């Protein structure tokens, strides 16, 4: 397939487009390179979204499957990563919606509702029990994951693309099929929510941590 002038210009700027154009021409080595190049980023994002490795790898494999199956129709119109993560976004959000319709685990009754204790409630409980000053990185990572789980799927996807893929609002809008204004609003809500959920773990200059005060009181 001949490469048009615009495609050629884009391919010059984006090495991944050049790689995908080789995949389009049935270059197996190029596809292997593409998988190798994107697997960590894709599995990472999927893992943050679905919360377990096996499911994340299944979804990531499905994304690569679609890329390969549709290689002949690929035409560079934007950065390759935008096209790639658009497929990933649609697959992931559909899978999550599908999962929400069919809960995989039996639900237990709880004061916090049918899904059990909410992540923000867990944060509040744990915060009271554990001084965050001495919190190890792994524990802090758990708190952050819990905070991320307080976001809805779209907020979480927007945060992941912005934070870990370093995507601009425009690119996120392309990937998620939204306007840049909607992305701006989505990210604003998400970041406010994260800040509230992690308030106990983010200290401001000159601000004393409540846990420090508690330990002083206990010491008296």
């Amino acid at each position, binding site marked *: 397939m001949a490469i048009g002038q615009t495609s050629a210009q884009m391919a010059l700027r984006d090495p991944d487009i050049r790689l995908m154009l080789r995949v389009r021409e049935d270059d197996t080595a190029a*596809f*292997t390179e593409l*998988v190798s190049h994107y*697997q*960590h980023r894709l*599995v*990472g994002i999927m893992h943050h979204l679905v919360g377990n*490795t096996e*499911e994340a*790898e*299944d*979804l*990531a*494999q*499905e994304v*690569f499957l*679609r890329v*390969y*199956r*549709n290689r*002949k*129709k690929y035409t560079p119109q934007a950065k390759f990563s935008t096209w790639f993560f658009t497929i990933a*976004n*649609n*697959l*992931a*959000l*559909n*899978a999550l919606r*599908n*999962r929400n319709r069919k809960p995989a685990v039996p639900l237990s009754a709880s004061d916090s509702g049918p899904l059990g204790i909410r992540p923000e409630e867990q944060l509040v409980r744990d915060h009271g029990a554990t001084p965050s000053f001495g919190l190890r*990185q792994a524990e*802090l990572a758990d708190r*952050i*994951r819990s905070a991320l789980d307080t976001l*809805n799927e779209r*907020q979480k996807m927007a*945060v992941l693309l*912005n*934070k*870990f893929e370093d995507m*601009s*609002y425009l690119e996120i809008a392309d990937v*998620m*099929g*939204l306007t840049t204004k*909607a992305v*701006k*609003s989505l*990210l*604003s809500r998400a*970041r*406010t929510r994260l*800040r509230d959920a*992690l*308030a106990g*773990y*983010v200290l*401001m*200059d000159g601000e004393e941590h409540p846990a420090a005060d508690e330990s002083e009181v206990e010491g008296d």
Partner: protein
Amino acid sequence: MADSKPPADDKAPSDPATEELVAYLDGELSPPDAESLATRLGLDPKLRAQAESLQRTWDILDILPQPQPSASFASRTVSQMLVVPAAGGNVQSILAAPANSALAASPVQRSGASFWLASFLTIAAAGFGGYFAHQAYAPAAKLAVMEVPTEDVPLMKNLRLYRNVDDMEYLKQLDSPMLFADPAES
């Protein structure tokens, strides 16, 4: 492209001032707007504290470990793809195609389905082969039964009795009508 219906949580009105602040921190404001907000930040400690807390929360996400794919992921993925033909259809359908099958039937599971399909076809072929072989050889077997000499039929019928007798002469004597006759009659 993606679904156009935002979840209920996305519909809630957001604070325009916070939106501007977040966009400023993300470098998404136009130069004049960014300059204006920077001036306000210098003058308003409360706004500055809000910006700092948002930025620190954002920075703390760096602590999250990056999940790694398993060592065999790439090789498994590539080997799965090499048996996949290129598809037809339009690009929009590729991008927006539902992923309900993504979890229900992963590529690995699909290969399992292929295995079972192949097994079923093999068993079915063996069944048909056996049936036709039977049809081919069964008439000959029936013919063999029909070709048993008629004089052997009584022998076969009484084979069980004959097995208890060693001597054919003795058997013939037993068959004599006079053997158990009343002596007075004789």
